[in-house]
């Protein structure tokens, strides 16, 4: 039993240990920022590597906590993404007075996400969710001198609290309607009664808040704009990815008998999300807001994939999140660097960027192409598989709308590319020196963007672990 406990919860335990190490160091020893960053990155690397070994499927605490090969892969994607975020944050954190706290909060959220993904019970899921979102609010406030940052944190905590309220209400309704909150047992009690549909809608709304699906997206842009770039990238990729993973498993296991009902809802939500996300993204001038709306549109595409409800669908969503980690973090990496050195965050600031910073320009361009879904970047494969899994249900209207919306998204990504390469600027961003850690992170991202797509093995592997019905 005890070995089971240690092995199955290995990833969570590693993170807990790291948190305690950092906490003790904070109390006991004065580290310079440099040392703290080095140490934290090293520990995160250890966490990533540790995730690769000794993985067994199993369940603990009478099914409250469960793990299997797919869950391990999902967690590994998240820890890897966190490492990249942390590498990118280093140039911003260097000047910050609370480096260790940042990492403690960061890892707490990651721990929460891990518990959330592994949850076999809605209560456990809720605990994990809260553990992940409360420290996130503190992180959003981490630009201590900026008012905008506190505003972002405030908005985030309020909308999170609201979403949590909806979720809790939904969970209690589920309990009332089915008599259980264990995910694997709910399906047996689902009859499609109105009360159950009501409970499901509440749950769906809670999830939709977390992954910012239209019409529950209104907090996204403001929070993204106000929060420090590192936190924004973490929010947009890691936090959303983890909720998506849980969302799929809740839909595909607990609410499997209601598939027809939620298919229609997801159809509507995905179309709305793609269109609204796209239309708003066109009009953004702040690059963080722009990326916020583009990420909303991306979520819409992911929902198209989720509607497929096949093994292919799960595989394509996990695969897309992996690609999204690389592409979005590459884009945010460049934005973070520019913002940390010059403080400029407008799209128009990137005019003439290529003349002064060719390397960063190419990285940003490749990242944007990957987000837009242009081959040979991985984004093309990700989008292609999402849409194919959506088309697997035979709903060609949905994928036609999605495919046509790719054109709109293409427009606004190209707008940035145009600014970088073609527009003239009197005051371009000066030549930036790229420090070691961010450089490493950017190279990893670009390599990921190129390799995860072209190497068919990655998708095959994820597909072999996936489930569906």
């Amino acid at each position, binding site marked *: 039993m005890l070995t089971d406990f240690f092995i199955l919860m290995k990833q969570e335990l590693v993170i807990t240990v790291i948190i305690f190490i950092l906490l003790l160091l904070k109390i006991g020893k004065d580290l310079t920022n440099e040392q703290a960053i080095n140490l934290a990155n090293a520990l995160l690397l250890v966490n990533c590597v540790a995730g690769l070994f000794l993985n067994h499927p199993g369940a603990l605490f009478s099914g409250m906590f469960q793990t299997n090969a797919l869950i391990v892969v999902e967690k590994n994607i998240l820890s890897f993404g966190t490492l990249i975020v942390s590498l990118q944050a280093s140039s911003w954190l260097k000047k910050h007075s609370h480096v260790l706290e940042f990492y403690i909060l960061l890892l707490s959220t990651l721990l929460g996400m891990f518990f959330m993904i592994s949850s076999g019970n809605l209560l456990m899921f809720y605990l994990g969710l809260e553990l992940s979102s409360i420290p996130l609010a503190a992180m959003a406030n981490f630009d201590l001198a900026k008012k905008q940052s506190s505003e972002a944190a405030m908005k985030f905590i309020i909308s999170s609290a609201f979403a949590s309220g909806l979720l809790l209400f939904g969970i209690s309704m589920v309990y009332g309607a089915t008599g259980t909150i264990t995910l694997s047992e709910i399906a047996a009690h689902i009859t499609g009664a109105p009360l159950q549909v009501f409970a499901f809608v509440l749950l769906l709304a809670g999830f939709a808040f977390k992954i910012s699906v239209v019409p529950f997206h209104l907090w996204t842009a403001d929070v993204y704009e106000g929060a420090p770039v590192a936190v924004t990238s973490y929010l947009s990729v890691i936090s959303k990815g983890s909720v998506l993973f849980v969302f799929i498993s809740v839909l595909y296991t607990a609410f499997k008998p209601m598939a027809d009902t939620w298919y229609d809802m997801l159809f509507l939500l995905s179309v709305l999300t793609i269109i609204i996300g796209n239309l708003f993204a066109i009009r953004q001038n702040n690059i963080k807001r722009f990326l916020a709306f583009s990420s909303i549109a991306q979520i819409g595409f992911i929902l198209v994939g989720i509607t497929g409800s096949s*093994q*292919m669908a799960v*595989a394509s969503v996990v695969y897309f999140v992996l690609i999204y980690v690389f592409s979005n973090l590459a884009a945010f990496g460049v934005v973070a660097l520019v913002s940390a050195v010059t403080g400029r965050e407008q799209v128009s600031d990137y005019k003439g960027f290529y003349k002064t910073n060719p390397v960063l320009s190419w990285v940003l361009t490749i990242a944007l*192409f990957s987000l837009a879904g*242009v*081959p*040979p970047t991985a984004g*093309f*494969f990700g989008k*292609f*598989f999402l*849409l*194919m899994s959506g*088309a*697997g249900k*035979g709903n*060609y209207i949905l*994928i*036609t709308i999605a*495919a*046509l919306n*790719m*054109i709109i998204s*293409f*427009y606004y990504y*190209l707008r940035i*590319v*145009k600014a970088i*390469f*073609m*527009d003239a600027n009197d005051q371009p961003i000066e030549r930036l020196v790229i420090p070691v850690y961010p450089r490493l992170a950017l190279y990893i991202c670009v390599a990921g963007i190129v390799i995860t797509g072209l190497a*068919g093995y990655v*998708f*095959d592997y994820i*597909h072999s672990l996936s489930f569906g019905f």
Partner: protein
Amino acid sequence: MRVVALSGAVIQLALALAFLVIYWQKRAAGDQSPMLFEQDYIWFTPLNIHYHIGADGISIAMILLTAFVTVAGILVSWSMEKLNKEFFFLLIFLSMGAYGFFISLDLFTLFFFLEVAVIPKFLLIGIWGSGRKEYSAMKLALMLMGGSALVFVGLAGIYFNTTTTTGAHTFDLMQIAQMHIPLQVQKLFFPFAFIGFGIFTALFPFHTWVPDGHSSAPTAASMFLAGISMKLGGYGCLRVATYLMPDAAHAYSWIIILLATIAIIYGAFATMMQTDLKYINAYSSISHCGFVLLGIGMLTKTAIAGAVMQMVSHGLMTALFFAAIGMLYDRTHTRQVAQLGGLLKVMPFIAAVFVIAGLCSLGLPGLSGFVAEVTVFMGSWQNADAAYRLATILACASIVVTAVYILRAMGKVIMGPLQVNGQNAPLHLGDAGWNEKAAAAILIIGIIAIGIAPFWLNELIGGATTNIIEKLSFR
């Protein structure tokens, strides 16, 4: 960098010629399999996606075209100064997309390469272009992306209506060709695939990117755009839409013919109104690509062979035309017909190139344009339907209009009193350099090789068109 690019392109050309020779040898040895040089690797197992490539006569012809235009395009931009590394990289990248597209036998691979070819065009036009370059680049990229989006829906529709022996769906072109896709499905997805590819080849009314894109692009990019990129669409219309969905092709052929005829006539008359040399060639490209679609829409063997020949011929001819215009513009800094005159006196070589391209465009016997157009018309006439014959007659008549605008432009620019930018004083304008001469020579060799001895091209594509026709008539 330019040396690397050129040597790479020359190697590609040599390889393409080698493939041609090997292809002939294999055929002569009695190898009757529809595709030669096949390579098949599994890429994504869950979706049964393969990296499957191979070539038949049509592919070989298109590869040759791509190789010719690539070499010529690189030679023409030999003196490109601005960001030259990026420029040549993008040119090669674009040609890679085209090569990959023409040899793909898996619809996924095909779609992959189709989209690969879009982005370099955007950057080439936007960075190195002239005039309203950002607008044109964006318009072109968005319209072509729209085309690919439609193609994607078409391909997804085909995919989910196939079943292999193992019960899985497939993207494999040769396997799908053996299956029968239900008529209703064909009728639903044929328009997506055909219009999607049609946008690439300037199908009316989706031709509007052509004039803007071509006129803003730098010379080499114009050559690639008109010479190669527009052929991606024609090839896709033929190989994917028509070949895989023959029943729908029969059902909708009247629409294709209608649109193609409109494109031919509208393109020809719109060209008459143009005063800028690049616009003249761009609009005439719309008209000429109309012949490709007309040939495909007629669904007879000769017409389809003619469509393929027209693709090759138009690719070479329009690339040559754009090369000549680029050379003129480099020296005179204007492309307005009204401001040029008598250039034969100061730059005889360029003027000669210009004349050859023009004559090929209007279909002078002995050059490739004549061969291709006549084949299309002969094939079209075989389709005995009265309305189709009317379309053929109208298309034939458009050649007169072509002759008018080509001869008028040439007469003004080449002959008459020497004039540049409206000034009478003769300027010290040099004739073509070695690189420009080489570029023009390569393309002219191609044009004349087809024009004088069309049988080799006809034989080359004959087997492939027979396959397509068998599929089309077997219902």
